[in-house]
């Protein structure tokens, strides 16, 4: 461990928590965390400064999916506050966030944590970081593929696409026939007429992924 006194400031040595991989985290130490890439990028995407969070933990306390997370939500915020980019992007917490807004609703300092999680997730996609929560990311990809194709979500197509991509062929296999019978899973997609606009939107917004991993 290197304890450095740079510019007269004691520089934090991160390495805490099981989910912050020790190797990556200790490598990236920002003397001035507020100017780190990740903090700036998050601020630009969410229109809020990450230092609004004063780490009270009310978000984690109320998070419905907290039990499934290795890093508590406020810890991910802390990673970004410290500029620990790899730790933040490798955490599965943003992917597990259900976007229920409980944290944003209760945050005493009006920090919109759900939005923050969206931003971290988005940055990790931009940077091509592959999350361990593969099912979740595959689902989102499959969903958006449907929308891109048809303008609307096409549930049967979505399920098929998702299953092919995750190889979870047997899950919910029992529900589908029932759904089809009840007319809930239509066999043909509803298509939007003006698919040009939809395609255009997707074309202009899709992240240029660096697929090198």
């Amino acid at each position, binding site marked *: 461990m290197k304890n450095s006194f740079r510019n007269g400031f004691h520089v934090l040595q991160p390495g805490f928590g099981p989910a912050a991989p020790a190797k990556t985290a200790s490598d990236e130490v920002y003397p001035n965390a507020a100017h780190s890439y990740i903090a700036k990028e998050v601020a630009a995407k969410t229109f809020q400064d990450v230092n609004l969070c004063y780490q009270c933990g009310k978000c984690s306390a109320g998070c419905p999916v907290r039990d499934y997370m290795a890093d508590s939500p406020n810890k991910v915020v802390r990673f970004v506050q410290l500029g620990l980019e790899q730790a933040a992007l490798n955490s599965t917490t943003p992917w597990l966030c*259900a976007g229920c807004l409980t944290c944003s609703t209760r945050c005493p300092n009006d920090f919109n944590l759900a939005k923050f999680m969206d931003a971290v997730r988005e940055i990790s996609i931009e940077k091509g970081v592959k999350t361990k929560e593969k099912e979740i990311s595959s689902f989102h990809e499959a969903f958006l593929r449907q929308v891109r194709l048809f303008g609307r979500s096409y549930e049967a197509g979505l399920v098929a696409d998702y299953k092919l991509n995750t190889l979870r062929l047997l899950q919910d296999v029992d529900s589908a026939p029932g759904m089809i019978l009840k007319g809930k899973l239509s066999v043909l997609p509803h298509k939007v007429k003006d698919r040009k606009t939809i395609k255009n939107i997707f074309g202009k917004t899709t992240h240029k992924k660096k697929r090198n991993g």
Partner: protein
Amino acid sequence: MADAGLTYGYFPGCSQKGSAREYEMSLLKVAGKLGIDLKEIDDWSCCGATSAHATNHRLANALAMRNMLLAEQQGLETLVAPCAACFNRLITTKAECRNHPESKKDVEELLSASVSNTTSILNVIDLFDKASNGLIGSGRVRDMKGLKAACYYGCLLVRPPELIDTDDSEQPDSMERIVKATGADVVEWNYRTECCGAAHSISRRDIVVDLSKRIIDDALMHGANVIIVACPMCHTNLDMRQRVMRRMYPSHKEIPVLYLTELIGLSLGFTESELGIDLHYIRFNMPNEIMNQTAQA
């Protein structure tokens, strides 16, 4: 009976055409009876749902705004978005474009059109609580007494508080008001605004089953015999996932889950199949008192 001429734009959302077919059926039935004209936006598209905003916020903004733009172009000043998630996407995008001109500019470029961003958005509760206050009571033909309803708001109906000015985000009571108007009793319970896992329904079924089970158990513990929801995702998770719960927890006690519109529909005298209640996985059995009433009528 109703003031005729209440016309709103209608943004169904994808689920309404598929897994939540009965939600649309019941909504349109009830609205028609109450004299509310819901005009479906022509050529609407997906709001982007969780997947868009979770991975690409520009895409999310553009997809949601496209529908509001269509509404503008089609002269619809107010949009009803029955799905809580769609509702949330629309109000969030609207607020972001209002508060951040750069976002608005971006969206306008993506859509190649200028947006006035003045469309007002209503969810189902707003529609029945605010827009047509008192209509349900006067048109009621069936007293839903005997139902002990646990009103489940889920996460997105009353959040975020800065964009919801019609109800409290922590202790909401607007759905209870409507449910009481149908004659049903409401139970006081703890999980009214807890999340069911929402979009993880397919990808992390384990989480969703856990969360939904907790919600259902709490409702049962507080004496509910039906859960009322106003969101297709909540419905899927609470209704369909009970099959899994039954398999995982043999002691699981089932509870029917109704859409708010279905409950209103029943009190307005529609039959269960008209409202699509028979499409649910957990069968809803009307309590005897209500059945008898119907027989008399």
